[in-house]
Every structure is written in C-alpha cells, then in structure tokens.
C-alpha cells in the first residue's frame, strides 16, 4: 500500500511541476509577445534609437521574467522532492502547490509585459524622457509581480507546513481549495496592475510635465487593484491553517473546495475591472492637471464599487468555511 501511495505522490509531483512550469511560461510568453510587437512598431518608426529600445526591452524582460522563475523554482522543488516519507495528503499538497504557482504566474507575466511595450512606444514619442519612462516601467512591472509573490508564498507554505495529524477527508479539499484561491486570484490583479502601469508609462510619455502626479496616482491605483489578490491569499491562509474536524461525508470536503474556487474565480473579474478604472484615471490625470483631485476620488470610489462582487465572493467563501 505504501508503494502505491508513493507512485501516486510521484505522479502528483510531476503533474504539479508540469502545470507550474507550463502555465508560468505561457504567461511570460504572451507578455513578451506583446512587448515584441510594440517594439516592432517603435523601431519601424524611428530606427535611429533602436539601442535605447533594446535596452528598455532587456531591462523590462529581466524584471518580467521574475514570475516565471518563481514557477521554475516551485517546479524543481516538486520534481526533486523527497519521496521517502509521504502520506496520502502529500498528493493533494503537490498538486495544489504546482497549480497555485502556475496559475499565479500567468497574470503577472502578461501584466508586466504591458508596461514594457508601452515604454517602447513612449520612448519613441519622447526620447528626452527615456530615463524617467524606464524607471516608471521598472517600478510598474516590479509591483505587478506582487500577485505572483502571493502565489509563491502560498505554494511555499503548502510545501513546508506540517500537515501530519490532520484528518484526510476534509483536509485534502482545503489544500486544493487554497491553491485555487491564491492562484486564480492572482490572475486578475496581475493583469489589472499591468494595465495601470501601462497607462502610467503612456501618460509620462505624452505629458512629461505631469510625471509626478501621474506616478503617484499610478502607485495608488496599483495598490488598490492588488486587494483582490490579497483576498485570495487571505482565503488560502485560512484554508491552510484552520484545522478542520474529521468528516466522513463528502459534503464538507466539497464545501472547502467550493470556497477556494469561489474566491479564486471571483477575484479575476474585479481585478481586471479595477485595472481598467485606474488605467483610465491615470491617463486622464496626465492630460488635465486641474481635475486631479476629482479624478482620484472617482477612481477610488469606482474601484471600490467594482470590487464589491469580489467581496460577495469573499463572503460566500467565508460562509462556506465557517458556517457550513
């Protein structure tokens, strides 16, 4: 019987590692494809500054690849883990950890490609501001990595927390649910933050005098966009660290799995929506100085309301965890 479990654990580790690496690489590849397309246009428009453009692309890509290197680390940890001392729960831990990191790297990969592409266009438009645009691009794509960092934290917690002594029956569902909540929850925020950083680069390239307030509002918008990913991390932490009593029926397992799925999927839409809002606000703040205060206020209110469906998902998951 122990051999049997070891075989299944190995299968789970390979599937988990494959998912982590595959999803992670796809996200980064889409982002880089966007960057390359934008850089194509930029070089076609002014070939004489192609050196600057290549430099920007290189720096942007180096930062943007952080998320997929996280996925690589998790995949390697899973593939070369110690298979000697395993239990039934290890199967779901490995699956969930790989899934969480893979899904979490998609959003950040796509998101951090967007500002890099826009920075190439911006440098062509305003070559004198190239240092400033590069700085904003790097800051934007570094902050857009934070949902992937949340997913990394969840995967590492899953791998290193001691689950011995927990009953198998509801705990396996809690573990897989935690992976879904943190991984899927990171997609929306990653893409949304990428959109905000993109319009930050665009705004500075169009209106160099507005650089300061554009930067400040961009950082504010990105911080608010990140909240849905934080909700995903919150549900994941609760699912991992709360010890559930043993239950024979399949219903309680499904409740925990449903809680994770609910929060994960429910965070995608609000994340992207908040990104749209902040993108538009940053764009217009860079164009009209007089309306900065009104625009910041409406941006915060609009983002808060767009987030409310994500909060309903949070409520349903909390009910599924604590009440049922």
């Amino acid at each position, binding site marked *: 019987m122990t051999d049997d479990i070891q075989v299944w654990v190995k299968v789970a580790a390979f599937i988990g590692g494959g998912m982590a*690496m595959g999803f992670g*690489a*796809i996200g*980064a*590849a*889409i982002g*880089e*494809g*966007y960057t*390359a*397309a934008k*850089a*194509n246009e930029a*070089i076609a428009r002014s070939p004489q500054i192609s*050196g*600057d453009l*290549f*430099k920007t*692309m*290189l*720096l942007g*890509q*180096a*930062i943007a*690849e*952080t998320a*997929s*290197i996280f996925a*690589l*680390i998790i995949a*390697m*940890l899973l593939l*070369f883990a110690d298979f000697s001392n395993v239990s039934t729960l290890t199967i779901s831990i490995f699956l969930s950890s790989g899934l969480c990191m893979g899904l979490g790297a998609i959003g950040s990969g796509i998101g951090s490609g967007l500002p890099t592409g826009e920075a190439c266009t911006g440098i062509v438009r*305003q*070559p*004198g*501001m190239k*240092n*400033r645009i*590069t*700085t904003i691009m*790097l*800051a934007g794509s*570094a902050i857009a990595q934070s949902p992937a960092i949340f997913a990394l934290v969840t995967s590492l917690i899953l791998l290193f927390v001691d689950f011995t002594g927990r009953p198998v029956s509801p705990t396996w569902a809690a573990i897989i649910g935690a992976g879904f909540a943190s991984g899927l929850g990171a997609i929306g925020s990653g893409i949304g933050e990428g959109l905000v950083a993109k319009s930050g680069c665009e705004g500075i390239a169009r209106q*160099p*005098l507005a*650089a*300061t307030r554009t*930067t*400040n509002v961009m950082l504010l918008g990105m911080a608010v966009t990140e909240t849905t990913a934080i909700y995903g991390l919150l549900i994941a932490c609760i699912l991992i660290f709360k010890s559930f009593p043993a239950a024979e029926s399949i219903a309680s397992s499904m409740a925990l799995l449903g809680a994770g799925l609910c929060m994960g999927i429910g965070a995608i839409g609000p994340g992207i929506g908040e990104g749209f809002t902040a993108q538009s606000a940053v764009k217009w703040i860079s164009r009209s100085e007089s309306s900065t205060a009104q625009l910041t206020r409406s941006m915060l209110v609009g983002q808060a309301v767009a987030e409310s469906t994500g909060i309903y998902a949070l409520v349903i998951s909390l009910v599924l965890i604590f009440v049922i």
Partner: protein
Amino acid sequence: MEEIRKVQKRYCSIAITFAIFAGIIFFLFGLKPIGKGLILGTIFSIINFILMGETLPLKIGISRNRAGVYSFLSILSRYALLAIPLVLSIKLARFNIGATVCGLFMVQLVILTDEILHQFYFSNRKDLFFKPKKNRTKKLLWKN
C-alpha cells in the same frame, strides 16, 4: 547591440562583484553552503541575462503570435539552463537552496536597486515624489 552589451556589462559586473563579496563574508562566518549557493545562483542568473539579450533582436520583425511562440521556446530553453543550479542545490548539501534562489534573482535586484538609487541619490532627478523643477524640465523639452 552596443547599447545592450554596455547595459549587460554594467549590471553583470555589479551583480557578480556583490555576490563574491557576500560569498566571502559568508565563508568567513563559516556558512560555506550559503556562500557557495549565492555565487552559483548569481553565475547562472548572469548567463540567463546575457542569453536573454542575445536572443532579443531575433524577436524583431516577426508577427505578434510568432513572437509569442518564439518567446515561449526561448523561455523553455533558458529555464532548462536555470534548472541546473536548482537541481544541484536540492540534491547536494554543499549548496544552500535558499541562497541559490536569492542568487538567481541577483541581476533583477541589482537593476531595481540601481534605478532606485539613481532616482534619489546619484542624479538631479529627485522629482519622483516632489514637484518637478520647472526650468530643468523645460530645457529637456527644448532639446528634443
């Protein structure tokens, strides 16, 4: 291409210098695996960065979808290289896994730190969080 080489030279030299210094300090404190892991990770991080720069111009001049497929292949091939230090550090006790992971992000850390330091200390561009100096920005605009 010259521009890329210059950037690479700058960041890679800072990264490897820092890694070697930190490694020596760890050696002196008797934490050999951490120092070794840091240097190993940094070397592979630099190789990855250089390969990234070399494959960059090949992506120009093709369509967006093909660029996506091309980047996917390039990522997979480069990450096969990055997997080597990770596997080594997982399998061998000589290299600390955490330090290796830190080393893998050394180039990125150097880029970010360099940008931030430039923003605040090494140049006059202190206006990230303050009001821009009007005459200076105007001069910039005139130049273009």
